């Protein structure tokens, strides 16, 4: 079984994107878009499964390209800068393909129901298929430039889909913000590629990995490469410096948030670091930095999530926090932990987002936590599904989230103990604190929404499904038949079916997929040999660290859930009183540490002022200078004009003076 069919994986969604684009033209064709996209993504999923046996393990030590690369055509060949449209398949790629296409299909099915009745229906599915094309290209790219194409391609799709409700200025601003922040990260990534090319003279992934693997003495150039690539990864995966765009990305439709801003796109950064691990090992400081940034981001985002009231914002910050965990995992060379958490996170975070979408759908766009309570009676299935998701996210024992988060924390602890570096132990502690906070805010949300007295206010969207009308209120004819539902109701089975699948994944993926996934990761370029050797002789006060960590993290999770239960279910007034006492802290957290405002003040406004200054400068100084040069002859003319006053004698005098000057010149010339 050869790798050839793998070529179709990205191009099928691309084809469907084109067809969906055509569907936009006719109203009658609109309904075709959903099946087209779902079919295409599922076909890619099947192709990935079909091709999986042919995928061989890849070891950067000896780069035999043959079994891995499938080339379409040569894209850019200039001198020895060779870039061609080729795909590189190894177990890691396979894993990512599974995640992307799998979750993609489920979300697309959900979206078919969720987006029904929306004017931009076909446009939405065109965007989703284009996204899958870009994501699969990114994952399967054979060289860094093609990776960059996928990288910016997903950035574009997130721009288009966040700005899907283009009537809402907030959505347009959020989309613009997302694209620009991503672009800043992409610049770092591009510069990383340049540096790689200028040092290794190649951009092909396999060659770069093998060359990086064989480097004994890294020079300063080598030291810079990981830091530049890191900038790109943090931009795309919304880590500390460049995370501001993800919370605003919630302006897009919920399936978009679920697919792109939870499961697939944001994990691109983690995939990139895992893929280029040998390059990151070039510099001794790179991976620790990644770990630190990951841990700090996790804690930081978790604290903010505590005091948010918007459902989707909470999950957005929780995604940033979980991504922090993944970076922490990859940072301590436990790529297995990182990828495993990525895998499980895709399931339960998508589940959570989609259930939140169902709530929003049911309550006509209502997302404010304080206005919703006790929906278990109205929406029992969604309540149950969200419970499974929350359990997994909180890391309740034996759920998927538990296994993956625990594996990361254990690896961090092991590394800390075995290398006797306090850094890693502190990171482990930070991880545990964040785990507690995660459990707390997850169940804060669940208890608030589903338990307690059943009272809720409907959102302002008359038309439950489509946010488009919220702002516009344009009086365009209701071309699509919508039954006006005035009360919370359960979602149709079309939307709940994928949720059930996700729930199963969220609960049982941890148990069954761990060994399969570990096998995939270790056989790929992300295999970190060093991690295993450490495992042997580290002990946490006598016990095996992994076992110990399992107990600790499950205890932390249960404790978090209990605290949330006490404050947000049993004794809500107590929560309000605590919030009242620490009003300062709560408002700080609610306003996201005013980071957006700081960025705006420090970067955006000065730049715009600089722009204004340049424009004024341009009109005054630059034009002025050139006009001045243009004025010089006129100035000389004005100086000479008195010689032409019209008097006959004046002219005679002028002539005599002229002759005198020239005569003097001749005398001088004759003299020399």
């Amino acid at each position, binding site marked *: 079984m050869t790798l050839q069919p793998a070529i179709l994986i990205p191009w099928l969604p691309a084809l469907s994107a084109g067809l969906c684009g055509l569907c*936009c033209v006719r109203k009658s064709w609109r309904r075709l878009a959903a099946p087209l996209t779902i079919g295409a993504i599922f076909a890619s999923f099947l192709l990935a499964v079909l091709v999986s046996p042919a995928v061989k393990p890849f070891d950067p030590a000896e780069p035999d390209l043959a079994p891995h690369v499938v080339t379409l*055509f*040569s*894209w*850019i*060949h*200039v*001198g*020895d*800068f060779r870039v061609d*449209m080729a795909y590189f398949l190894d177990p890691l790629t396979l894993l990512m393909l599974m995640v992307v296409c799998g979750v993609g299909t489920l979300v697309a099915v959900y979206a078919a129901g969720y987006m029904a009745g929306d004017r931009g229906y076909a446009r939405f599915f065109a965007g989703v298929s284009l996204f899958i094309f870009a994501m699969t290209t990114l994952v399967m790219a054979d060289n860094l*430039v093609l990776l*960059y*194409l996928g*990288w*910016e*391609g997903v950035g*574009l799709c997130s*721009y288009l889909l966040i*700005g899907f409700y*283009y*009537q809402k*200025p907030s959505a347009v*601003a959020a*989309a*613009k913000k997302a*694209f*620009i922040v991503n*672009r*800043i990260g992409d*610049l770092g990534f*591009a*510069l990383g590629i*340049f540096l790689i*090319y*200028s*040092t*290794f*003279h190649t951009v092909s992934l396999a060659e770069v990995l093998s*060359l990086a693997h064989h*480097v*004994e003495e*890294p*020079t*300063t*150039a*080598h*030291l810079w490469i990981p830091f530049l690539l890191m900038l790109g990864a943090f931009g795309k995966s919304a880590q500390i410096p460049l995370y501001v765009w993800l919370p605003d990305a919630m302006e897009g439709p919920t399936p978009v948030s679920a697919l792109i801003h939870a499961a697939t796109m944001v994990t691109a950064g983690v995939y990139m670091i895992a893929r280029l691990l040998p390059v990151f090992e070039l510099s001794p400081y790179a991976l620790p930095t990644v770990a630190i940034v990951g841990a700090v981001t996790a804690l930081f985002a978790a604290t903010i999530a505590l005091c948010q009231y918007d459902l989707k914002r909470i999950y957005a910050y929780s995604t940033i926090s979980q991504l922090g965990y993944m970076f922490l995992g990859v940072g301590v060379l436990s790529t297995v932990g990182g990828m495993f958490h990525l895998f499980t996170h895709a399931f339960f975070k998508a589940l959570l987002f989609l259930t939140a979408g169902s709530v929003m759908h049911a309550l006509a766009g209502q997302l404010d936590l304080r206005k919703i309570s006790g929906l278990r009676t109205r929406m029992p299935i969604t309540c149950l599904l969200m419970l499974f998701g929350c359990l997994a996210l909180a890391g309740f024992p034996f759920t998927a989230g538990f296994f993956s988060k625990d594996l990361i924390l254990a690896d961090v602890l092991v590394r800390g103990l075995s290398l006797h570096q306090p850094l890693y132990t502190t990171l482990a502690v930070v991880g545990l604190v964040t785990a507690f906070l995660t459990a707390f805010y997850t169940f804060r949300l669940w208890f608030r929404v589903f338990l307690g007295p059943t009272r809720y206010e409907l959102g302002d969207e008359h038309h439950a499904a489509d946010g488009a009308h919220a702002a*516009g209120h*344009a009086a365009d004819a209701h071309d699509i038949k919508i039954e006006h539902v005035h009360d919370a109701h359960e979602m149709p089975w079309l939307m709940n079916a994928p949720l059930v699948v996700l729930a199963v994944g969220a609960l049982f993926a941890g148990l069954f997929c761990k060994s399969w996934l570990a096998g995939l990761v270790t056989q790929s370029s992300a295999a970190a040999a060093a991690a295993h050797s450490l495992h042997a002789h580290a002990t946490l006060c006598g016990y095996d660290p992994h076992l110990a960590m399992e107990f600790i993290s499950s205890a932390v999770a249960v404790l978090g859930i209990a605290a949330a239960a006490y404050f947000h279910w049993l004794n809500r007034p107590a929560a309000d009183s605590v919030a009242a006492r620490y009003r300062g802290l709560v408002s700080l957290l609610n306003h996201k540490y005013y980071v957006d405002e700081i960025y705006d003040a420090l970067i955006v406004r000065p*730049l*715009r002022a*600089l*722009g204004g200054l*340049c*424009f004024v400068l341009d009109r005054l100084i*630059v*034009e002025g*200078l*050139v006009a001045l040069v243009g004025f010089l002859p006129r100035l000389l003319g004005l100086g000479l004009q008195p010689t032409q006053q019209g008097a006959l004698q004046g002219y005679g005098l002028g002539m005599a003076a002229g002759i005198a000057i020239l005569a003097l010149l001749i005398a001088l010339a004759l003299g020399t």
Partner: protein
Amino acid sequence: MNALIPLMTLLPLVMAPVTFALLAYKLNWHALATTLLTLAISIAAAFAFDWKHADTLQLVTVWPWISDFGFTFSFGVDAISLCLVLLTTFLMPLAVLGSFAAIQERRREFFFWLLMLESAMLGTFVARDLIFFYICFEFTLIPLFFLIGIFGSTQRLRAARVFFLYTFTGSMLTLAGLLFVAWHATGGSGRWNFDISYLTAAAQQLSYPQQMLVLGALLAGFAVKVPLFPLHTWLPLAHTEAPTAGSVILAGVLLKLGTYGLLRFALPMTPQAIVALAPYIGLIAVIGILYTALICWVQKDLKKLIAYSSVSHLGFCVLGLFALGSNLIGPTGSVLYMINHGLSTGALFLCVGMIYERLHTREMRHMQGLAKVMPVWSFFMVFFCLASVGLPGLNGFVGEFLTLLGAYTSPHTLGQPYAVAAGFGMIFAAIYILYMVGKVVFGPLVLPPADLHAPATTPAGPAHHAAPKDLNFREIVTLAPLAIACLALGLYPQPVIDCLQSPLETLTHPVTSVVQAQMSAQGPVTAVTSEEKNLPDWPSDTSPLANPGDAEHR
């Protein structure tokens, strides 16, 4: 077979008075037919061209002109000029098609000058005689002077005059420079020969100070045309005043005359001076990129925004041109950039022109959220904006990436700081383009007041402009080929890149040999040269951090 090139060049010139003499009706169809015929001939020439050895001069025809002076009308193309010729003949029909509705009165003059302009531009790219090149280079001034002057909007007089004088002054200095080179090539024999290849060979004997002088003269003329940083103020003026077709051609092709001139004359004739001045010109280009990108962000007028953006893009083009020494990535990226910028910015001007036809204003504050009423136009607008911002997969990316990579990997003339600074230009480009798209295409629907000059504060609020109709078939036919070209060049630019390699090799050979000589003179520091492909051969003595002498931080 090689009568194709002169036929192509002179066809518009001959047809211009014919269209002028024709009656007013069906005038635009005649103009369209002429431009399409020229396109057909140029494609025929492309087929006749032997792409394998693309650097050799092909399809050469020499017509005697003033034999006593040694002036000849000698036509000839190599791969670079043929690509630019194809760009010109490709854009012209679209420009004519784009101005069917825009130009109502004095149409005969409009198409007369437009065809003259096309002939002048084609002449510049195919000229193999120095004075014939200069004549066509200057002759492009007159048509545009009238196009802007007659068909412009409010400030057209000043725009036309500023446009003409900036370029005229610069090109007069270039004339002095070119004559000096021609005289030096006579070597005192008193017999002048203006053939470009002969002069390029003879120019190798120029001494260093002479080369600086000649380069100064050439730069004076071409820097104004390219609009390098300080001399760019004429471009926004000319663009806002020029009619749509004028803007498309001005941005699409005329700006490329400057960079083509630099590539054809400055690089081969004055290598030492180029290597000496490259860092400074690179600096000016980078300043130009960042400075104008910031200005774009605060623009109120749509066309002025795109005009400033093309100044910023041309900054990349020049940066690539001067990324010489170690490999051909920079120059290839630069030539590709010329073609891509021509397509994407030309299309943007067509889109803006279509909006101007409907809403009769270019003020961005008057229009918002047009996607609701004009979805097809919005698709094309967003598509071309993304192409011009350099989104991978579309044509802008290939040029931009190669230019930056070229600048990065040629430490001798430019170097990493240039590439990093220019990289920020990429971010600013995204900022101002998305600011404009977010303002004009997306957001709630706002239309300009019906009568722009009426006081906006009438009691019932300004009566809004009727909702503009979406693109009709003609307009879609104008934009579609450009979109397809952008996508094709983005996904599969390889054939263009292949054919550019050898002519660029010959053109940049003098400079690379100068750089090699200087590098070997500077001692055995291992430069990042393209030939040497061995594995990392870093001096393995010093520790990783304290490695002062490594190549890339020089």
